C-alpha cells in the first residue's frame, strides 16, 4: 500500500472572503500565538478507523462540530482486524509520527472478534517496537463506538498531545 503524507495546507481557497467561514461566522484564527518554548512541530498521525464504529464515530464528531487537532489522516478499513501490523510499520517507516487504530468496543465487533485479534497483535507489535528502540507510544489502540463522537475526539486530541511530547519520528524525511 502507498501512503503519502503531504504538508498540511492552511491557505484558504481562493474566492472566499478571508473574514468569513463557510458558515458565515466571522473567522477567528484557529492558530493561537505560540507560547514560549512551544515548537513548530505538527505531528502527522495516521488513523485506521473501522467502518462500523469509529469511522461513524468520527463522522458524528464532525457533524456535532467537535473541535480536534487537524493532524490526523483517517483511512477507513472494514474492521480493525484487517489492519496488518505491516501497514502500521510501513506507515511509521514512511515517516508517520504516530499511528492510531480505532475500533469497536470489545463484544461490539461487526465481525465478532476482529477487534480482539487487533488487540493481541497490538500488544505484540508494541513490545517489538520497544525492543527495536522505537517509542511504543507512537502507536495507540482505542475503542470508540458510532455513538461516541466525544470519545473519538478525546482519543485524537490525546494522541496528538502524546506524539507532540515524543517529538518527530526520527525516521521521518525532512
Amino acid at each position: 500500500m502507498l501512503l503519502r503524507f503531504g504538508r498540511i495546507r492552511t491557505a484558504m481557497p481562493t474566492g472566499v472572503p478571508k473574514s468569513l467561514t463557510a458558515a458565515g461566522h466571522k473567522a477567528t484564527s484557529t492558530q493561537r500565538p505560540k507560547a514560549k518554548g512551544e515548537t513548530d512541530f505538527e505531528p502527522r498521525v495516521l488513523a485506521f478507523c473501522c467502518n462500523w464504529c469509529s469511522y461513524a464515530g468520527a463522522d458524528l464528531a464532525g457533524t456535532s462540530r467537535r473541535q480536534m487537532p487537524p493532524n490526523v489522516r483517517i483511512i477507513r478499513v472494514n474492521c480493525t482486524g484487517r489492519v496488518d501490523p505491516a501497514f502500521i510499520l510501513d506507515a511509521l517507516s514512511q515517516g508517520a509520527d504516530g499511528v492510531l487504530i480505532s475500533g469497536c468496543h470489545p463484544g461490539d465487533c461487526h465481525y465478532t472478534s476482529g477487534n480482539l485479534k487487533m488487540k493481541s497483535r497490538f500488544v505484540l507489535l508494541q513490545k517489538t517496537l520497544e525492543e527495536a528502540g522505537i517509542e511504543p507510544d507512537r502507536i495507540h489502540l482505542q475503542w470508540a463506538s458510532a455513538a461516541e463522537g466525544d470519545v473519538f475526539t478525546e482519543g485524537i486530541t490525546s494522541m496528538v498531545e502524546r506524539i507532540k511530547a515524543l517529538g518527530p519520528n526520527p525516521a521521518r524525511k525532512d
Partner: protein
Amino acid sequence: MTKRIAMAQLTSCWGCDQSLLDLHLGLLELLPELEIVYWPAVVDFKLKDLESMPDESIHIGLVEGSCRTEDDVRLLNIMRAKSKILVAWGVCSCYGGIHGLANQWDLDELVDRKFMKADTVTDPRLPSENVPPFVSNVQPNVDVVDFNIMLPGCPPTSKNTIEALSAILSGKPFDLPEKSVCDQCPKVKQDKHITKFHRTHEGRIDPNKCLLDQGYLCLGFATIGFCGAICPTVNSPCKGCFGPVLRVKDHGAKIISALGAIAEMTPEELKDSFPDPIGSFYFTDYAASYLSRMRNKARSKRK
C-alpha cells in the same frame, strides 16, 4: 560450452559453500559444465584476479553473506560489475542474515560489547591493523546492487543450489515457490486452539501433529516453502530461516498478525510468551524489516 562461475563470500559463516559441497559425488555431474574462476573457499584465486577480469565476463556470480565491512561492499560491487547473472546465495545475501539482528544497536555499542567488554577478553583493545572498517549497519545486498536471482536459505539446501544452477545453465527461468513450509510439512493440521506457548525443550512433542497446534512456535506458516520442511519433519519447529513467503515484505509483522489471530490467550499472556520478539520473529531477516530500516534512517539523519 562451459560457463564461467565465481563465488564470493562476504561476511558470513560460509555455510552455503558447505551445503553445496554436501553434494559430494553429485558435484561431478555439474562440474564439467562449469569453469571456476573465483572461489576463495576452495580454490586459490585472489581478489586481484577477479578485478583484472573484463566486465560481465563471468556467466554466473554467486554472492554469499552480507556487507558488514567496507571490503564487503567493494567485493559486492566488483561481483556485480563482472557477472552477467548475479545470484543472492543464502538468506544473508537476500535479507541480511542473522547478523542483521545487530541493527538493533549502534555500531559503537556493538564494537564496545564485542571487543572491549566480552567476558573472555583479558586485554581489551580494538583491532586496527589489516582489518577493514565496519559499515554502520547491515543492509540486505539487494539494497546495494541489483541481483538477478534470489536464492534464500540458511543455508539453501544442496538441492536448491543445484536446481538454480541447472536452470541457469540450461537457460530456463528460475522462480521461487509460492508456497509456505506448511504446504510441504507432512504433519496433520487441525483447528488451532493454542492456550500456551512452550519452549522447544518443554513437554513431549506428538510426532504426527502440527507443532504449532501443540503450542510450539513453528514459523512454517510465514516462511517460504523452499527447504522441504526439513526441520518440522523431524519435530524441530521452523525458525523461519529461509525468510518470508514470496511477496511478504516484513516477516515478523506477518508472524505477529497470524499469532494475534490464532492464539486463544489474553493479550497479556501472549505478550509474556515472547521475551525477545525480534529474535523470535526476525531470526534471519531483521535487516530487511521496516523496523531496522527505520532505525537506519534515524541513524543516518543523526550524522
